[in-house]
């Protein structure tokens, strides 16, 4: 410390970094000895020198600089936290994964139920369509049969006369193999749910009328009935008759004959 005197004039120059190499090296060698006087003096000089920064004209960096810097800082902070020792707590991403898995499972189950419902509904629709097709085919078959009976030259025509002169006449075509087709137009609708029932009157003396099928005319009075399997063969039948019966028909006529037509 006895040689501090020779460095006293170097404090400011050293703090400024303005000393030439030889002076700086000598002074630093002295500082390396741990001289507290010079060390304190240098620190004070640096404090003053640092104030020179305020001589610079005021300026502001761009916002982009802060943006770039903060992006880097955040990335490094995240990396530093990521490199920290493993924690006992479950990381947020794992919770997110579990939540996503639960959601996926729930969705899959819901989707499965939806699919099952859809399959069931599709099956039901398919069955309905098949039934509809079956019915249509049956109707088509009946229509073909009706047409065949009515067009076949071997069919026997039976004219049924109404007992009530106000009622229209009906007509039946009977084919020995394909059955009987009964038709009529402008036929009044029976009251309530009552029906018109076809009877086969046997040739045998004392024979009781053979009950056949029932029918109701449609809204415009058209009557169409196919009896594919008559209860009696044509050769054993004397006449056809129609009565009005309760819904479902009767085993024997309960009302007076409304229409009657004999086989020639």
């Amino acid at each position, binding site marked *: 410390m006895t040689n501090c005197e020779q460095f006293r004039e170097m*404090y400011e120059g050293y703090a400024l970094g303005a000393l030439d190499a030889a002076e700086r090296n000598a002074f630093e060698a002295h500082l390396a000895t741990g001289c507290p006087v010079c060390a304190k003096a240098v620190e*004070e000089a640096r*404090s003053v020198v*640092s104030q020179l*920064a305020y001589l610079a*004209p005021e300026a502001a*960096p761009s916002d982009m600089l802060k943006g770039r810097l903060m992006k880097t800082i955040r990335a490094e902070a995240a990396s530093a936290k990521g490199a920290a020792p493993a924690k006992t707590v479950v990381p947020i991403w794992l919770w997110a994964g579990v939540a996503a898995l639960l959601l996926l499972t729930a969705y899959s189950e819901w989707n499965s139920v939806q699919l099952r419902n859809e399959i069931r509904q599709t099956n039901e629709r398919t069955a309905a369509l098949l039934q509809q097709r079956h019915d249509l085919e049956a109707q088509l078959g009946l229509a073909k049969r009706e047409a065949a009976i009515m067009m076949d030259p071997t069919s026997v025509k039976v004219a049924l006369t109404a007992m009530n002169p106000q009622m229209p006449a009906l007509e039946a075509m009977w084919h020995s193999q394909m059955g009987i087709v009964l038709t009529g137009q402008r036929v009044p609708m029976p009251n309530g749910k009552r029906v018109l029932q076809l009877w086969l009157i046997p040739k045998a003396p004392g024979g009781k009328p053979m009950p056949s099928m029932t029918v109701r005319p449609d809204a415009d009075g058209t009557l169409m009935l196919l009896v594919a399997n008559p209860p009696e063969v044509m050769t054993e039948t004397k006449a056809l008759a129609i009565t009005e019966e309760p819904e479902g028909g009767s085993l024997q006529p309960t009302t007076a004959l409304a229409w009657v037509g004999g086989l020639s």
Partner: protein
Amino acid sequence: MFLAALLSPANPEATPDAALVRRLLQKDVSAFEQLYDRHSRAVYSLVLRILKQGGTAEEVVQDVFLQLWRNAERYDESRGPFIPWLLTLARNRALDTLRLKSERQRRREEQTEQLPPVVAAPPEFEKQIDDKRRAEKVRTLMGFLSPQQRKAIELAYFEGLSHSEIAEALKEPLGTVKSWIRNGLLRLKEGLQAT
């Protein structure tokens, strides 16, 4: 008299710099952002004054603050306030860049890449005035120096020139330049301490 005019009430800081720097050790991004917001203008102004190029200055400022973020433990708050330390770091970085660009000062090229030493214990003015008032005060005090003193000091501080280089640039004797600089800084110190 002018010093009296520069006196200002204390500038209470909700979050002192030293506390923010301590939080940097925990990689607190918020603390870093606060420090940046508080001091980036002063740092940038200094670096821009040295480098005179905005783009290069921003690169250096970025480097300074990244060094602060990555090596916050190098600041020892027991040895002085934060902002002189930061400004010294910024000046050294800027002068290094200037030197690399101009190759004018081989002397500084021999210096190792080190963070600046912590500056002296804080004078009272450090605690009492904010950046703007501090700047006004320093400029006012510098205004009382002779033009040669100001020029020599500025060449040393902003250009990084040595005594010899300044003497050569100003075509003045080396001893005269040394006296200008030393006496000018001592007068500045006295002015700062007087407030």
